[in-house]
């Protein structure tokens, strides 16, 4: 790792060189200006040495050259909504924020493709092509703020990835700058580029292999018809068993989200979407496709919910009602933030068959440690988001939260699951990687990183546990206000 001893101090010659490239108001370096960039949507904090906002790929190449000269690390960042510290300058350095590279360069309706700069906001692309009947399918809950560059780096998911797939299923080609200073293009707009699937490797590499400058994505036709169902349950077990049963019967809705009573009361208080305040949990389910298929699938889904004692199954009457229910879901993390000073969110994944057992275990763990835990998550994929609510001002609570969280992750792994379904490893979960991967597995991945990012000059010390200081817990809570979560 190249983080030079003085990486965190702003060198006056470095500032001069960066100013030449970005103008005097184009480089943030005063402590008060850097505060915003110490954070992303996760619990970690790390202050960059300075922040720049390139508008062109030439400027990206330029900043890489300068950084190399001064041996100062570089880290790419989109909107900073990430949930694992992927876009934080862990060891200081130049934070390259792509928010000004936000042009949609090309929309090719005929071929259902678009070429975008990395700073294009996820929802902006879908909005820009809506009149053509197309959309960009990955829909993280932060989609009104998060950028496509960030989505590609993190391989982001979202509620509708259940049927449509995650970001990697929608990326065709990438133009990027390697930390070695090369501008390269990988993949191709046409299918099946010849040779190794480099796009497949780069998507989800969490900003540790390259800085993205241009992305070619697939656009997906909007369904002819959508129905949104809200199934209301009196017990958690009935809710989770409904999801397991639906999966087992091979019914794949477009989205299948679960909100437990704790979170939905917070949401209702905030959004007024009509969520029942006295229920144990609800499922928010979208079915879509051609009209005839949607009708029968909605019936099937409702039938399964009733078979598992759903108290009521509501169908949204129109798009307003549907939008309101989804607004409740997508703002849920923010709503929960109103209930406590701090929360810690996880992203574990389990086989769908293990949902009932896992939710029971999470409840037990909450009781054992004395924390309320809210659950709002992508039930259809088995991708959990338990939110542990606590008071970060109390040092002993923080320690117990981490212990509780580790116990949940341990259980997910015992169930055959994974530590992160969509938020990424970043600097938050690197210490957990050995729970899933052997040292040989991790070494191979480290070697792949070294092939493109020698000396970890780009985004150092992410994903893979640092061999030197393992076991160190660096998790810190963050204030919840204004957080955008998936």
């Amino acid at each position: 790792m190249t983080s030079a001893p003085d990486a965190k101090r702003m060198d006056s010659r470095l500032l001069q060189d960066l100013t030449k490239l970005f103008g005097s108001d184009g480089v943030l370096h005063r402590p008060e200006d850097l505060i915003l960039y110490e954070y992303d949507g996760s619990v970690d904090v790390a202050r960059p040495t300075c922040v720049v906002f390139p508008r062109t790929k030439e400027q990206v190449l330029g900043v890489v050259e300068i950084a190399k000269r001064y041996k100062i690390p570089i880290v790419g960042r989109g909107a900073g909504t990430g949930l694992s510290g992927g876009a934080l300058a862990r060891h200081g350095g130049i934070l390259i924020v792509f928010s000004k590279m936000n042009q949609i360069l090309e929309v090719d309706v005929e071929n259902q493709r678009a070429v975008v700069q990395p700073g294009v906001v996820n929802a902006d692309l879908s909005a820009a092509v809506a009149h053509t009947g197309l959309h960009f399918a990955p829909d993280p809950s932060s989609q009104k703020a998060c950028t496509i560059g960030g989505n590609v780096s993190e391989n982001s998911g979202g509620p509708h990835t259940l049927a449509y797939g995650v970001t990697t299923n929608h990326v065709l080609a990438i133009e990027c700058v390697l930390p070695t200073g090369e501008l390269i293009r990988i993949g191709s707009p046409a299918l099946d580029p010849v040779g190794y699937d480099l796009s497949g490797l780069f998507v989800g590499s969490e900003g540790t292999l390259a800085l993205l400058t241009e992305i070619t994505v697939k656009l997906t036709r909007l369904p002819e018809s959508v129905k949104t169902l809200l199934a209301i349950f009196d017990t958690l077990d009935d809710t989770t068993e409904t999801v397991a049963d639906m999966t087992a019967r091979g019914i794949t809705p477009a989205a299948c989200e679960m909100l437990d009573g704790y979170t939905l009361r917070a949401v209702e208080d905030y959004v007024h979407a009509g969520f029942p305040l006295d229920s144990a949990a609800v499922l928010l389910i979208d079915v879509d496709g051609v009209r005839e298929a949607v009708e029968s699938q909605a019936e099937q889904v409702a039938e399964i919910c009733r078979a598992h004692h759903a108290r009521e199954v509501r169908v949204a009457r129109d798009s307003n009602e549907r939008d309101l229910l989804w607004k409740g879901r997508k703002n849920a993390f923010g709503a929960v933030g109103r209930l406590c000073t701090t929360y810690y969110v996880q992203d574990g994944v389990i086989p769908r068959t293990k949902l009932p057992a896992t939710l029971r275990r999470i409840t037990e763990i909450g009781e054992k440690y004395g924390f309320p835990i809210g659950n709002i998550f992508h039930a259809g994929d088995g991708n959990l988001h338990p939110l542990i609510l606590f008071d970060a001002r109390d040092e002993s609570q923080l320690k117990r939260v981490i212990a509780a969280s580790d116990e949940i992750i341990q259980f997910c792994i015992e169930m055959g699951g994974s530590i992160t379904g969509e938020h990424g490893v970043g600097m938050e979960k690197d210490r957990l990687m050995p729970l899933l991967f052997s040292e040989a597995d991790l070494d191979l991945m480290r070697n792949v990183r070294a092939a493109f990012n020698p000396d970890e000059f780009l985004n150092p010390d992410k994903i893979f546990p640092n061999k030197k200081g393992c076991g160190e817990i660096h998790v810190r809570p963050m204030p919840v206000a204004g957080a955008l979560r998936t």
Partner: protein
Amino acid sequence: MSTASKAISSRLPDIVGATHVVVDPAELSAFVVDGKLPAAAVRPGSKEEVAEIIKYAVSEKLAVITCGARTKIGMGLSPLRYDLALDMTRLDRTIAYDPADLTLSVEAGVPLGKLVEMLVGHNQFLPLFAPFFHRATVGGTIASGVDSPLRQFYGTARDYVLGMEFVSGEGVRSKSGGTVVKNVTGYDLHKLMIGSLGTLGIITRVNFKTFPFPARSHGFLATFKSADGAIDMRDRIATSPLTPLTLEILSPRVAELFLSPAAAIAQVSAPPAGVLSRQHWTLASAVVGNEKVIARYEMELRRLAAESGAVNISILGDDTRPSVWGRLRESVPIMLESSFATTILKITVLPARLKDTLTTVVNAADKNQLSWAAVIRGLGVIYFAFLPDERSDAAHRAVVTATNQIFEAGAALGANATIPWCPMEWKNTLQVWGPERNDLAQMQKVKKVFDPHGVFSPGRFMGGL
């Protein structure tokens, strides 16, 4: 006895047991790759044994070619060196199958056919509906990167493989991904394995998403006087709300081959009379759903076919559909059976360029007096086969000229083009892997990490990888 064979006969039996080492030349002939005979073939029974064999191969500087059922062993360039065949067919266990979670984990040597038997009992299937289906293994199908008609709806292996275990070129066992349907833990190294022709690692285990078997499925076929009509219909479907499972266009010659004895490979019954036309282009699409959904699809497809100038329309039910779909799956093997010198190009283009691209390749074929057949996948993949009457010098020259013309034109069309299948003695004069790509240097970086000693299939993959 060569150094390689001496070394092999001393150490390999210790690793896998003498019965699983083949050195007898007669038996070894089954492992020939492009005329090259290895010094030995070895059949490991576990991933640990695979790793030991590779460590040993590295220490002895042996060149290893991994194989399954060897149905696609002719793909790629001829190996520069070939000492050891690594036959994966003993690794044929199912590691885990959780039907209620729709996930499956198998060893690489499992035959695709065996999977079908297991999954069908739970009313599920894997969209790896790939050619050479009755013999091919999971590992070979993934490593060769062959696609299937079902990609229209389900995508390719990269979309439903959840994780893998593999052995690197240093004999280290490694893995990436996992067994759950959503996972972003670590790099997706398994994506690199797909289509790498065994040049990065030896796949030992693959974890899949499985899919529920559709309740009811119909085949829809429409015939057209020209390719343009069929492509017009493709375009109309692409802009409609319909999402068929498959969408393929066949040239008249493909219909003829489907009705010829060569189609026996598909191991399905004969299609109903009149469904395939030797004089026309055919658009074939599979649709699924309940009765109402299928009725809607049929109504819409009939309308779109009429608007596109279809000459004839047929509907195949559950009983007759496999006769055509089995043939579609096996279109590559059927084309390979149909000439002594079948040369197949795979060309991918943006869908809007299908017409221009097809015109270009057909012109190249006609100008060089080569007979041809074409299968077009609706997403923009063309399998274009030259079917010379004989394996002669004249045919060779014609194929070289035609393919070079196509590669040249293909660059302007933004096409990815390769020659996955051709007679082995023509390989050195054909651009098997297509024109050189700008990202080769990046791929070399990957190769160096996974196979630093160049143990795996030297010379077979693109750009010497």
